[in-house]
């Protein structure tokens, strides 16, 4: 189609160019055009938070944003959390150690949302604050408790 537009975004430290229709969502752009399928879509209309990614360090719903809106900006997705050799990052390790995931579908969004939270509350804050921070991400499996424990453990653990 002729009305495609060029987007240029930094994802997990590397710049990517794409040619997209203006209506292409950021989640589809990440998943289908960049093959970063760690970003998951569960409702496509902004209510479940499973598609959260970090845009310049802040969580956004990637199903509600168009790829063109991210032009020139910097994104972090779940693929950016582990070391290049695959070694789990601190939060990921804490989720592993504390059974913070079951089916794993909400996990990328949970990790990124927790990441943003721990930037603001490096000491972990209270359980209530953790629960509030992740309340926009729906998990159908865990009942959240082990996720809260994972985030608390990540805050307590050394980097």
């Amino acid at each position, binding site marked *: 189609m002729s009305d495609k537009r060029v987007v240029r975004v930094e994802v997990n430290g590397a710049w990517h160019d794409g040619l997209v*229709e203006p*209506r*292409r969502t950021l989640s589809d752009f990440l*998943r*289908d055009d960049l093959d*970063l*399928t*760690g*970003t*998951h*879509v*569960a*409702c*496509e*209309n902004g*209510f*479940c938070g*499973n598609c959260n990614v970090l845009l310049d360090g802040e969580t956004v719903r990637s199903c509600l944003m168009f790829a063109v809106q991210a032009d020139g900006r910097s994104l972090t*997705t*779940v*693929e950016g*959390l*582990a070391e290049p050799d*695959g070694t*789990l990052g601190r939060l*990921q390790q804490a*989720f*592993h*150690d504390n*059974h913070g*995931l*079951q*089916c*794993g*579908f*909400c*996990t*990328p969004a949970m*990790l990124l949302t927790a990441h943003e939270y721990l930037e603001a509350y490096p000491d972990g804050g209270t*359980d209530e604050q*953790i*629960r*509030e921070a*992740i*309340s*926009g*991400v*729906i*998990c*159908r*499996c*865990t*009942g*959240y*408790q*082990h*996720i*809260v424990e994972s985030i608390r453990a990540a805050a307590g653990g050394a980097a």
Partner: protein
Amino acid sequence: MSIAEQDPNAAKVARETAGTETPRRWLGKSLNRVEDPRFLRGQGRYLDDIKLPGMLHAAVLGSPHAHAKIISIDTSKAEALPGVVRVVTGKDVAEHAAPLPSFGAGPIVQDMIAIEKVRHYGETVAAVIAENRYIAEDACDLIEVVYEQLPVVLDPVAAREEGSALVHEALETNTAYERTFSFGEVDRAFEDADRSVTANLYWPRSTGMPMDTNGAIGDYDRGTGVVTIHANSMNFTYFLWLIAGSLKIPAGKLRLVPVVAGGSFGSKFFMHKVPTFAGFLSMLVGKPVKYVEDRRTHITNNDHHGSDRRYDASLAFDDDGEFKALRISCIDDYGAYLQFGTGTHGNALSQIVGPYRIQHVEYSLAAVLTNKNQQGAYRGFGAEVSNWILERLVDLAARDLDLDRVEIRRRNLIPAGSFPYRTPTGNIYDSGNYQGVLAKVLEDVDYDHWVEYRAKARAEGRHVGIGVVASQERSVFSSTEFWFWFDDPQFTPTSSPESASVRIGPTGEIVVTLHSQSMWGNSPETVVSQVLAEEFDVDPASVVVNYADSQNALPGTGPGGSRYTVMVAGAVAGASSELKDKIRRIASDKLEVAEADLEFRDGGVGVVGVPDRHLMLADIAMTAYMFRLDLPPDMPSGLAAHCTYDHPLTTLPNADRSDLGIFYPFVGHAWHIAVIEVDIETGKLEFLRYAAVHDAGTIVNPRTLDGQVIGGTVQGLGTALYEEILYDDLGRVRNESFEHYHLPSSMDAPSITVGHQETPSPYTAYGIKGAGEGGRMLAPAIMSAAIEDALSPYGVTVTSLPISAEQIVEWATGPRSD
């Protein structure tokens, strides 16, 4: 006491894996899950992450009406849209496919796409296959359908009346099934009992609602005629010929490839609509076609809405609180199709008396068809509903007698010495110590403290309530529950096996193949790794797990009814036993000791008591594969074993169905206690304490079991407080997105303490019982009890779910409900 003949192979496995003197090395430990790392890195490979070369995408057009004749469909505009490959309607289905499988009786026919009329809102009317999903959805909007609306059938009670419009004309009624089962002397017991309580109860329609919807990719190979379907569900590998039948292909030409699922909770249990559909679309265009439900379609048109039941239920008891008899009558609104038959009520009958010594039971069911989406499985599979009914009646009885709710339950518990215990329906409870679980939960929660606390709070005008409920957790179905409803059933399966293949490669690595869908949030890879570690004393993280596709699969039933851990552990133990025999023979040759002096330790085999006389598995495996002449003469090369593990303990129902036989015998037990405070101005609840104690037999991994208990409990809270699929007067779904269908969030969920007791099953491998559903079996009952208790000044009786905040405010401030 010998209750029935146990399956001989399962008996051998149970014998060999029963507790040994040495403590278990790997079972029972809270090891980190081996599944986790790939999911934590975003490399889960869910269905929608998979791309095949040349793959096309499908979207569907759902019916805007609940009940209407399809007069005409004009697809020309859709077909003209660039990027559209094909528009598909019921005409294509009528020409090229057969109806979808159904386990219900009678002429209740369902097609992949509605052919002559639509029977519920959201039912598929047409599909578009296009280059991408955007175009497919655009094209769906261009399809023009002319409908003639028909009278809508929504109320299952009215649907039973003469003159009601019919959902399926060929059936000539909307009552698809009706029967009363009687066990014992129910009328006499009710007459003789001092008292009884009766309640009309309503359990609302909700659904498992996994974050990952149902999806499949069909990939038709014109050359071979094989239809490969990648799907995020594969249950019952021995029933997949039904899907082949719908596609009109020979069963051997169907190849289902199981893909990881982001949750199921019932909604992917023997999921066939979506895979069959994707396979069909691919056959039409000769290319791979992906179809993944969007959320709206999942809510309005999925395989499995949960139970939607109206009950009239009574419990008879004596003045001393002893329960005598139970009478339950249920009208179940099944929606437009009866895909899974009445198995969810069979399930309920497996533990209909709960943990109590009730001898006489009557159970009536009317399964009614209406213009709603079909009903099927949701965590608990109908037993969660029956437990809510039973515990409601018990609370009412306690109130009637002015007896403490713990005490009335304690008086009726089946005593620890009476297992295996035969319940009135014929199903048995294998083992248990219910008094132990009760004592533990009371202690864990410091029950007396909270009773005092409640009294003080009440004196201050606060609304604090305590809920205390018990539940059984039946596990491992044998499949008779799907057909014992009929005196003369047409098809009577009695088998629901699970299989495992264990291979030790030439360099000593262990690779295990599982034979059904497995990973959908449970921990199958961790379970089998821990079992193999237990058997061979290897590092569980070193075990490699893969999944067979259906063409290569041995019989596998998959997760469901809390069966998978029990069954796969049995299959892995069985295969391990065969391998260990072979390894022992080779090692006894090599080490020149008797086989009896050998033990599996440190990743190999060693002579008992002699630390340095030891061979690694790799040493033995290399011999087994490469050095045939070093092997005992009758021994073939290689080191692999397959085991198909059958249901360990099941019997047939009798002819008149006064005894349903043993069909769900590995029965766990649990108690939950919740203390809540209700704000009567806003209807909001605060959890002051929530404790759970479960006995699921031998525990494989305590932390993942905690995860199941907590996750299931929070799901049950959703059922109790928020969730209901709402149909309006025209049968349209009013809450077809997460905006209006509220799932519990982290702010709604309590912090739960989980305790365990372990009473092994005498019949299963290692004594494991299933435990995936317990949380949801208790939470609705406990919330009902706790809210009722908190609002006791207002004389509230909870008789329907969900209990909304508005309802609470109305109870506390508005006119009294009764």
